[in-house]
C-alpha cells in the first residue's frame, strides 16, 4: 500500500508576537467583563463612523521581509560612510565614539518614560543633571534645561523667553543666522505678535553698526549665531554691549557646539541666553532628526527658561536624589500660562551628548575642535588658491567656510557625485546674492587624502 506524503501547508501564525493575548485568555477576559464579544466593547462608536471593511494597507511583512525592504530603501541613499561628506550647515559629520550608543541605546534608557516618578528613575534624572552641568561648562552659562526639540525651535523659544523677560515685543536678527532657524523664528513669533527685524550680514558677519541702528526701546533681544551660518566667528562681546546698552538681551544661537571646545564660550562674552543644536555632540546625522535643542541662561533668568529642569535634592533618609523641578512652569501645571507647550523633549539625545562630552573630556574636546580647525583651514587655503574659486569672506572660520565659484555650485556637486564625493551646500536657495556661494564643511572625519581628492577634482573645473 502506498501512502501519500503529508501535504504541509505553512501558514503565517494568526497570533502576533507583539500581542500576547491568546484565544483562551480573550474568552476568559470577556467572561470577567461580562460581555459576549469584543465587538460589544465598541458599541459606543456611532454606526455611521464604524469601519466595516479593513483599512487598505499593504499585507503585513515578517521580520526578514521588513528588514529586506527597509535595507533596500536605505541602500538608495548616498550616506556619509559611502562618500566623504563636505556638508555642514547645522548638521555635522563627527566621529561618534562606540561607547555613546552602546550606553545610550541600553533598553533601560531607550524604553523608559519621562521621570515623573523620581524614586524609580534616579538613573535618567542623574544623567540629565550631569548633562545640564556639562552644558553649563561648555557654554559658560549658569543654568541649562533638559532639552528642546532642535536648535531652530530652541532659538525661537529663546526669543519668546526674551520677550517675557523684557516685556518688549521686537527682536533684531542677523541674516548670518541659519536661514531655517530664521524661518522657524518667524513661524513662532508671528502668532505671538513678536516683530522680527532682520539685519543683513556684511561680508559674512553680523553688521554691528546696522544692529545699533535698528535697536530700540522695543527690542527684547539681539539674535546672532556663533559660529554663524557661513562658519564665520562673530564679535559677540561688541554685540552684547550694544544690546545691553539699550536694555535688550543677547541671544546666541550655536549650531556647532564642538567649536566651544576651542572658542571663548558665550557666557564669557555676555550672552544672556544660549540656544543651540546638540547634534554634533554624539548624535548621528539621521537625515535631519531627531536632533537636540539646547538652552542655557543666566542664574537670574532661571525661572523663565522653558522645558524641563532636573534638580538635586534629598530624600527622607537624607540621601542625595534628583527630581524634575520648577515643573510648574511647564504646560502640565500652568496650562494656558505656560512659558511653552513642550512636553516630550529630546532626553535620549541629551543623555548621549552627556556621554560624549564625558568621553572626550576637556582635552579631547579641545583636540577634536583643533582637528576641525586645521583641516578646514587646509582645505580653505587649497581651494581658495584654485582658479575659478575664491574664499568669500575674510573673517575667521571654524570648520565651515564659503567659497564663490565660477562654475555654479549645483553643477560642481553633480560632477563631484560622479567622483563619489558629497559636495558642500549651494547657497543660492537661501541667499540670492550668493548664488555662486558654496558652503563647505570639513570636520575631523575628513582625512587629508579625502581633502586632497576634493581639491584635485575641483582643479580645472570650468
Amino acid at each position: 500500500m502506498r501512502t501519500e506524503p503529508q501535504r504541509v501547508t505553512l501558514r503565517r501564525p494568526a497570533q502576533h508576537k507583539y500581542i500576547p493575548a491568546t484565544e483562551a485568555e480573550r474568552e476568559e477576559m470577556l467572561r470577567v467583563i461580562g460581555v459576549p464579544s469584543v465587538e460589544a466593547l465598541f458599541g459606543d462608536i456611532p454606526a455611521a463612523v464604524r469601519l466595516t471593511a479593513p483599512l487598505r494597507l499593504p499585507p503585513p511583512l515578517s521580520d526578514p521581509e521588513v528588514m529586506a525592504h527597509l535595507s533596500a530603501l536605505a541602500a538608495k541613499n548616498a550616506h556619509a560612510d559611502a562618500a566623504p561628506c563636505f556638508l555642514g550647515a547645522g548638521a555635522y559629520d563627527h566621529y561618534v565614539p562606540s561607547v555613546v550608543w552602546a550606553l545610550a541605546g541600553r533598553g533601560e534608557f531607550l524604553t523608559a518614560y519621562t521621570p515623573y516618578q523620581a524614586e524609580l528613575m534616579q538613573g535618567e534624572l542623574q544623567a540629565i543633571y550631569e548633562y545640564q552641568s556639562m552644558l553649563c561648562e561648555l557654554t559658560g552659562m549658569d543654568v541649562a534645561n533638559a532639552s528642546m526639540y532642535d536648535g531652530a525651535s530652541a532659538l525661537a523659544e529663546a526669543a519668546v523667553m526674551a520677550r517675557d523677560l523684557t516685556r518688549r515685543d521686537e527682536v533684531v536678527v542677523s541674516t548670518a543666522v541659519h536661514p531655517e532657524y530664521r524661518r522657524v523664528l518667524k513661524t513662532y513669533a508671528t502668532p505671538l505678535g513678536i516683530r522680527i527685524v532682520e539685519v543683513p550680514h556684511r561680508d559674512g558677519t553680523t553688521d554691528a553698526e546696522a544692529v545699533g541702528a535698528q535697536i530700540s526701546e522695543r527690542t527684547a533681544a539681539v539674535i546672532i549665531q556663533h559660529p554663524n551660518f557661513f562658519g564665520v566667528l562673530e564679535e559677540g562681546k561688541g554685540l552684547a554691549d550694544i544690546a545691553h546698552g539699550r536694555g535688550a538681551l543677547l541671544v546666541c544661537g550655536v549650531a556647532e557646539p564642538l567649536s566651544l571646545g576651542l572658542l571663548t564660550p558665550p557666557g564669557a562674552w555676555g550672552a544672556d541666553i544660549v540656544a543651540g543644536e546638540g547634534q554634533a555632540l554624539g548624535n548621528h546625522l539621521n537625515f535631519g532628526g531627531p536632533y537636540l535643542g539646547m538652552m542655557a541662561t543666566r542664574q537670574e533668568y532661571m525661572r523663565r527658561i522653558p522645558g524641563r529642569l532636573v534638580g538635586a535634592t534629598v530624600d527622607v533618609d537624607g540621601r542625595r536624589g534628583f527630581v524634575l523641578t520648577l515643573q510648574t512652569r511647564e504646560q502640565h501645571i500652568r496650562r494656558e500660562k505656560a512659558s511653552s507647550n513642550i512636553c516630550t523633549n529630546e532626553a535620549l539625545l541629551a543623555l548621549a551628548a552627556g556621554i560624549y562630552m564625558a568621553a572626550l573630556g576637556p582635552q579631547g574636546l579641545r583636540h577634536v575642535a583643533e582637528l576641525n580647525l586645521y583641516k578646514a583651514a587646509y582645505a580653505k587655503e587649497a581651494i581658495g588658491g584654485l582658479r575659478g574659486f575664491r574664499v568669500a569672506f575674510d573673517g575667521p572660520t571654524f570648520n565651515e567656510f564659503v567659497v564663490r565659484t565660477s562654475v555654479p555650485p549645483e553643477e560642481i556637486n553633480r560632477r563631484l557625485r560622479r567622483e563619489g564625493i558629497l559636495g558642500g551646500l549651494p547657497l543660492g536657495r537661501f541667499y540670492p546674492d550668493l548664488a555662486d556661494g558654496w558652503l563647505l564643511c570639513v570636520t575631523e572625519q575628513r582625512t587629508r587624502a579625502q581633502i586632497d581628492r576634493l581639491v584635485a577634482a575641483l582643479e580645472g573645473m570650468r
Partner: protein
Amino acid sequence: MYPKDLRYSSEHEWAKVEDGRVRVGITKFAADKLSDIVFVELPRIGAAVTFMQPCGVIESVKAVSDIYSPISGKVVEVNTALGDSPEVVNSDPYGKGWIVVIEPTDLKELDKLMTVEQYLKAIGEEK
C-alpha cells in the same frame, strides 16, 4: 482664620488699609490650596497696578498662580524677605507673609471687595 478687619478679593487676596496705604497678601484658603510656596515673583517698586489685574506671581510645587492687585495705584513696598523664606506665606499669610504695599489712587475702590462674611460664604461654596 480670616481677620475681620481685612477686605477680600474674588481671587483670594486680602487688603488692609494702613495710613492711607494698602498692604496686600493672599488668604489662608489660597495658601492652603497652593500648598508649599516655593517662590514669589514680586513687582518692581514704583510699578503701576490696576484693580484685579495681575501684579505678581506665586509659585508652589503644585501650581503657579497670578497675584491680582485688589486696588489700583503704585507699588511702594515689596516683601523682599519672601526671597529667602517663601514658606512664610503658608505659615503667616496675614502677618509676615504680606506681599506688597500699594499707594492707592482711590481708596474707595476697596468697596468693590468682599467683607469677611462675604468671602467666607464665597469659599464655603467653593469647598
